[in-house]
C-alpha cells in the first residue's frame, strides 16, 4: 500500500489521530522550550553539521582509525557489507557462546537488518529490553517511531497486552504499575542473559570507544550482567574525536525529547575483565548513499527523531504509514536509496514545509532532499500519466495564448456546469473543499482596462 492510502486509513479514526498528533506536538514543544534556553543552539547545530560533513568526506580514514584503536583496546571488530552478513556475524558469535537467549537494547540498525526474525528462526529467544520495544515485540509490531517506538499505543492497549503476556491485572492502566511489572519481568531476563546486544549512538575514532545513550538503563543492565556484549553500528556513526561527543550529547536528547541529556551515557572502551566486547561495522547501502552527492547529507543523521515529531504529516498518519524501518522525513530520504520503487510515495508524502530541516540537529536539508528524490523517482518511473499531464502543463504555461484559452475554458466550465458535475468523485480537490468562487474578470483583463 502507498502512504496516501495508509494515511487515509489512519485518519478514519479522527479522535485517535488527533490524540497522536497532539502527543507528538507536545514532544516538539518540549524540544522548543529546551533549545530556547541554549543561546548557542544554532551554533551547536552548525558545529554538529560540519563535524559530520567532515567525517563523511574522510569516512574510510576514520573507520580505519576506529578499528585500529578499538582493537588495541581489546574490542573485536567485524565488518558487514549488508544485513545478511551482519546477522550471520551475530549468529556465529551466539553459536560460539552456546547462547540461545539474548537481551537487546534499542538499535534501529538491527531493525533495519531484521535481526530478530533471523535469530528467532535459529531458535534463539530475543528479548527487546527497552520498554517501548518490549511492548511492540509482544504485539508483533515494528516500531512506529525511532525514539518512542510505542508512541502510537494508548495505556489501555499496553494494559491489555501486559495482562496477556505478564499476567498483570486486567484493566489496570496505571503506568507506574505497568512499568514496574515490566521491570520485574525484564530483570529476570537481564540476570540470565549471557549475551547482550546494543546499538551505538556514537563511535569515536580517536579513542576507539563507542557511546550508548538511554534513559531506562536497559542497555547497561544487559551488557554489564552478560559475558558478551555485541554492539551493532552503521558506519556513519563514527565521529573523529572524543571532544566531539560534547557537541553531539548536547544536541541529541534536547532534539529528541527536550531533556537536557539522557540519564545514562555509557562509554565503552574495553571489555570488563574476563568478558568479550564485539563491534560490528555495517554498510548495508550506506556507501551507496555516500556516493549520491545530493543525498550524502542524509548520512549525518544521529537518529534523534525530531523530524518526525515536527512533521505535520507524520503526526497525522503515524509511523506505519511509511512502511519503512525509519519512517517520517528522514526515512523518506533514506529509504528510496534502498528501494526506489517500494518507497516511491514517501518523498511525495510532504508539503515541503521545511520544518524538519530547521529542527534537525545536524542541519540535514531534508526537505530539499525530498524535492530531489521526486526528480529521481519521476525519472525512474519513465513515462507516466502524471508526467504526461505535467508535460501538457508545461506546454500550456509556455504559450500565453494557450494559457489564456485554457483558463477561459476552465472558468467558463466552472461557471456553467452544475455543481454535481464539478464535485464528483473524480475531482479530489472537491471531496472536502469548495473550489474558489469565480471572480467576474481575471487580473489580466482588469489590467488591460485600467492600466493598459
Amino acid at each position: 500500500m502507498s502512504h496516501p492510502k495508509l494515511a487515509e486509513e489512519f485518519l478514519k479514526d479522527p479522535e485517535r489521530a488527533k490524540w497522536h498528533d497532539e502527543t507528538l506536538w507536545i514532544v516538539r514543544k518540549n524540544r522548543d522550550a529546551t533549545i530556547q534556553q541554549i543561546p548557542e543552539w544554532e551554533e551547536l547545530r552548525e558545529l554538529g553539521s560540519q563535524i559530520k560533513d567532515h567525517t563523511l568526506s574522510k569516512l574510510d580514514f576514520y573507520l580505519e582509525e576506529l578499528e585500529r584503536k578499538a582493537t588495541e583496546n581489546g574490542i573485536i571488530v567485524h565488518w558487514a557489507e549488508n544485513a545478511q552478513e551482519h546477522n550471520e556475524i551475530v549468529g556465529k558469535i551466539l553459536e560460539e557462546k552456546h547462547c540461545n537467549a539474548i537481551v537487546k537494547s534499542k538499535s534501529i540498525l538491527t531493525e533495519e537488518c531484521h535481526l530478530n526474525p533471523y535469530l528467532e528462526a535459529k531458535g534463539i529467544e530475543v528479548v527487546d529490553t527497552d520498554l517501548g520495544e518490549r511492548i511492540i515485540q509482544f504485539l508483533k509490531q515494528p516500531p512506529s517511531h525511532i525514539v518512542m517506538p510505542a508512541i502510537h499505543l494508548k495505556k489501555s492497549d499496553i494494559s491489555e497486552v501486559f495482562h496477556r503476556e505478564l499476567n498483570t491485572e486486567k484493566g489496570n492502566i496505571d503506568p507506574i504499575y505497568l512499568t514496574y511489572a515490566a521491570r520485574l519481568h525484564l530483570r529476570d531476563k537481564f540476570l540470565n542473559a549471557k549475551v547482550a546486544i546494543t546499538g551505538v549512538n556514537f563511535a569515536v575514532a580517536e579513542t576507539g570507544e563507542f557511546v550508548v545513550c538511554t534513559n531506562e538503563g536497559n542497555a547497561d543492565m544487559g551488557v554489564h550482567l552478560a559475558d558478551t556484549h555485541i554492539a551493532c553500528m552503521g558506519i556513519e556513526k563514527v565521529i573523529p574525536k572524543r571532544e566531539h561527543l560534547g557537541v553531539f550529547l548536547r544536541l541529541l536528547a534536547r532534539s529528541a525529547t527536550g531533556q537536557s541529556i539522557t540519564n545514562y551515557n555509557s562509554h565503552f572502551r574495553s571489555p570488563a575483565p574476563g568478558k568479550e566486547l564485539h563491534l560490528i561495522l555495517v554498510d548495508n547501502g550506506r556507501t551507496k548513499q555516500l556516493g549520491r552527492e545530493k543525498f550524502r547529507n542524509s548520512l549525518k543523521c544521529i537518529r534523534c527523531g525530531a523530524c518526525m515529531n515536527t512533521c505535520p504529516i507524520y503526526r497525522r498518519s503515524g509511523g506505519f504509514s511509511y512502511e519503512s524501518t525509519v519512517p517520517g522525513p528522514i526515512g523518506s530520504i533514506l529509504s528510496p536509496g534502498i528501494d526506489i520503487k517500494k518507497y516511491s510515495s514517501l518523498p511525495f508524502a510532504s508539503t515541503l514545509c521545511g520544518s524538519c530541516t530547521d529542527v534537525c540537529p545536524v542541519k540535514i536539508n531534508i526537505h530539499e532532499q525530498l524535492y530531489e528524490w521526486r526528480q529521481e523517482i519521476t525519472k525512474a518511473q519513465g513515462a507516466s500519466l502524471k508526467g504526461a499531464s505535467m508535460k501538457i502543463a508545461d506546454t500550456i504555461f509556455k504559450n500565453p495564448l494557450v494559457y489564456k484559452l485554457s483558463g477561459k475554458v476552465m472558468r467558463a466550465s466552472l461557471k456553467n456546469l452544475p455543481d454535481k458535475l464539478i464535485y464528483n468523485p473524480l475531482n479530489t480537490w472537491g471531496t472536502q473543499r469548495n473550489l474558489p468562487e469565480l471572480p467576474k474578470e481575471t487580473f489580466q483583463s482588469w489590467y488591460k482596462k485600467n492600466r493598459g
Partner: protein
Amino acid sequence: MQITQPHIGLFIPCYIDQFYPNVAIATLELLEKFGCKVSYPLQQTCCGQPMSNAGFENLSKGTTEKFIKDFASFDYIVAPSGSCVLHIKDHQPEIDNLEKNQKYVQSRIFELSEFLIDILKVESIQGDFPHRIGFHSSCHGLRGLRLASDTERNTPSFNKVHFLMKDLKGMEWVSLTRKDECCGFGGTFAVTEEAISVQMGKDRIADHLDKNIEIMVGGDVSCLMHMQGIATRDQNDIKFMHFAEVLNQALS
C-alpha cells in the same frame, strides 16, 4: 542602492490571475502608492513550480525560459507569493543560453513584504484596520525566504508582515497555538494526499476559530485558497485576506 521610481515587473501567479484578481490589484496599487512604476507583462503565465514539485523540474524548461524572457528587463520583479519567488530563486532548471538573464532575474525577484521593507525601506504604514486577525505563515516564505523567524530555531524574533501591519489602527494580531504549522496545501499534495491535506487545513482553521479571529491573513494565496475551500465547505465564520489587500485597504 535605491533607484528613484524603480520599474517593477509585476509577477502574478496563475491562480491569482484566475481566481483572486483582487490580490493582484491590491499589490499593484500598493506598489504604486509607494512610488513605483509597475508593469504587468501581459504574456506571463507561470513560474513552473507545479511541475517541479511534482518531480518534473526537467519538463518545466519551456515555462522557465518564458519567465526569464518576460522579466529580464525590469529593475525588480515583485510577486505577492513567497512560494513562487522561492521557486524561481532555488528550483528553476538552468537554461543554458539565458544564463546571464536567469541570474539577473533570480537576484532581482522579491516577495512583496521583503520588497517593501528591504528595498523600498518602508518603516511604517498608517491606516485603519479594526479587525482581529490571525497571521498564517506560509512555509516557503517563512523557512525558504526567511520572511519571519520560525518557532523551530533559536533566532531573534521578527515578522516582516507584522512589521508592515504594526501601526494599523485597531488591528489585533492574535497569537496562535501553533504559530507556524503548515496548512497542508503543498501543491499536488493537496490532491495526492487529500485526507491529510484537508485535516491539516482544518486544524489551522480551528486554531483561528477558537480564538474568535475574524480574518486569516497570509502572504500566499495558495494556502488561503486551500483553507478557504475548507472553510466555505464547513461553513466556518472566518474571512481570508492577503496582506496586500489589508495594507492597500488601510491606505485607501
